[in-house]
C-alpha cells in the first residue's frame, strides 16, 4: 500500500537560491493527489485519501541542497501524510542534502488528518513547523538512510498529540511543544540529546527520553502534568 503511493521529487540540477526541480512519479502513483509549485518551491497535497499518503522529496545530486520551501496539506486530506526527505530505504538511490523549511496544514484538514510522519535525514533540516494537528506526529530518522539521521535543527510541534523521535545518535536540535493542550499523546525520544526541550501546555501523556541527557541545555515543562512524566 505504502509503496504504491511513494512519490519522488527528484532534483536534476540545483542552485543555491532556488532549486530547479523535476518532479516525477515512482512506482505508479496518482499524480492528481499532489502538485509542485516551482514558483515557490512548494509541494501541495491536494486530494482526500483515507490511506497513508507518502512521497519522497530528495535531492538526487550531491551539490547544493534541495530547498523545499513548504509542504502544504490542503483541506479535505485524510489519512496519514508521510514525507520522506530521502529515497526510500533499500532503493539504492543516492541523494544530496535537502532543506524543508516548513510543513503547513490547513486548519480544515486537521480534523480529518490521522497524522504526519517525517522521515529521512533530519540533520539537514533547517526547521520544521507543524501546527494544529489532531493526529499522531512522528519524526523518524529512517535507520537505513543515513548515519546523519539525527535531529539537527529545531522541531516545533504545536498541539501535537504524540511525538516520536527515534534516531539513535545525538540530537542537537531543540524540541518545542507549544499550545495550550491538553497534550494526551506520548513523547518518546531515543538517543543522546543536547538540545533544549520545552513543553508548554497541560499534558496527560508520557514523556520518555532514552539516552544521555548530560549535554542537554535545558528541559522545561510547564502546565498541568497528569501522567507522571519521565525525563
Amino acid at each position, binding site marked *: 500500500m505504502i509503496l504504491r503511493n511513494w512519490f519522488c521529487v527528484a532534483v536534476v540540477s540545483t542552485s543555491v537560491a532556488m532549486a*530547479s526541480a523535476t518532479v516525477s512519479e515512482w512506482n505508479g502513483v496518482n499524480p*492528481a493527489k499532489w*502538485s509542485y509549485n*516551482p*514558483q*515557490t518551491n512548494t509541494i501541495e497535497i491536494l486530494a482526500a485519501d483515507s490511506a497513508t499518503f507518502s512521497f519522497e522529496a530528495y535531492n538526487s545530486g550531491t551539490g547544493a541542497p534541495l530547498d523545499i520551501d513548504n509542504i502544504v496539506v*490542503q483541506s479535505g486530506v485524510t489519512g496519514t501524510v508521510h514525507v520522506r526527505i530521502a529515497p526510500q530505504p533499500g532503493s539504492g538511490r543516492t541523494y544530496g542534502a535537502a532543506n524543508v*523549511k516548513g510543513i503547513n496544514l490547513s486548519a480544515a484538514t486537521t480534523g480529518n488528518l490521522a497524522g504526519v510522519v517525517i522521515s529521512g535525514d533530519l540533520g539537514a533540516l533547517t526547521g520544521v513547523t507543524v501546527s494544529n494537528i489532531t493526529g499522531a506526529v512522528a519524526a523518524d530518522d529512517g535507520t537505513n538512510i543515513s548515519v546523519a539521521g539525527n535531529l539537527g535543527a529545531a522541531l516545533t510541534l504545536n498541539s501535537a498529540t504524540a511525538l516520536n523521535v527515534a534516531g539513535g545518535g545525538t540530537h542537537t536540535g531543540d524540541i518545542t511543544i507549544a499550545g495550550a493542550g491538553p497534550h494526551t499523546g506520548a513523547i518518546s525520544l531515543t538517543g543522546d540529546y543536547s538540545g533544549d526541550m520545552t513543553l508548554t501546555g497541560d499534558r496527560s501523556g508520557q514523556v520518555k527520553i532514552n539516552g544521555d541527557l548530560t549535554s542537554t541545555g535545558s528541559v522545561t515543562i510547564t502546565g498541568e502534568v497528569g501522567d507522571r512524566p519521565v525525563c
Partner: protein
Amino acid sequence: MFRRALVLWLTGSVVAGAAAAPYYVAYEGNDFPENEGWERLYGDENGEGNGGATRSLVNGELVLDSLRSPQIYDSYLFRRALNPGPGEFFFFEWRLNVLANNGPAADSIITIARDGRGTLSLQVGNADVYSEREFWRLPLMPGVPHAFRVESADMLSYSLYVDGTFARNGIWDLNSLNESYVGFGDGRLGGGVTSLASWDYVRFGTVPEPAASALGSMLLALFLRIRK
C-alpha cells in the same frame, strides 16, 4: 532665512526618503516576459526546460495554455529587492482572465517573496482566488477578467483589492526560504491541473505612502509660497 532653510531641508528629506529606492516594473503583455527581463521557469512531462505552455500574445495579453498536460508549468520570475523604504508602500497588481481551469486546484499563481525571506502566494482559479499558505478563499465571477492588487507598507501584512474593491487583509508566511522575487504564470506541476489563462498585465513597485506624499506636497507648496 532660517524658515526657508528649514522648509528646504524638510522638503528634501521627504523627497529623498520617498525616493530612497523607488522602482516600478511593468509587464504589459506586449512581448514574451523573458524578452523584458523576466526569468522563464517552464517544463512539461519531459522535464524542466522542455515544452512549457502553448503561448501566444493576443491583443496585448499573454495567453498560457497548458490544457494538454498537467505536467506543464510556465512561470516568470523577476528577482530584485522588493521591500519599500521609509514612507513608501509596495504594490503588486495583475489583471487576469482564467478561461479554463481543470482539476482540484488553481493553475494561475502569483508569488511575492519579500526581502528577508517570506512567501505570499495567491492562486486564481475559474471562480475563486485563494492563498496557498493562509488557507483563505474568496469567490470570483467566472469567465471574466479580474484585476487584483496587493499593497503593503511593511511586507509583513498586506491588503488585497479585487476589481478596485478592498477584499481582505493577510500576512506573509515568514517560515520560508524564498527571498526577493516576484513571479506569475502557470505555476502548478501535477495535481491533474490544466488551464487556459490570459494575463493582461503584471506591475509592481514602490510608491510614497499617501501621508508622506501629502506631506511632501504640502511642504513644497509652502516653499513655493515663501519664494513669492
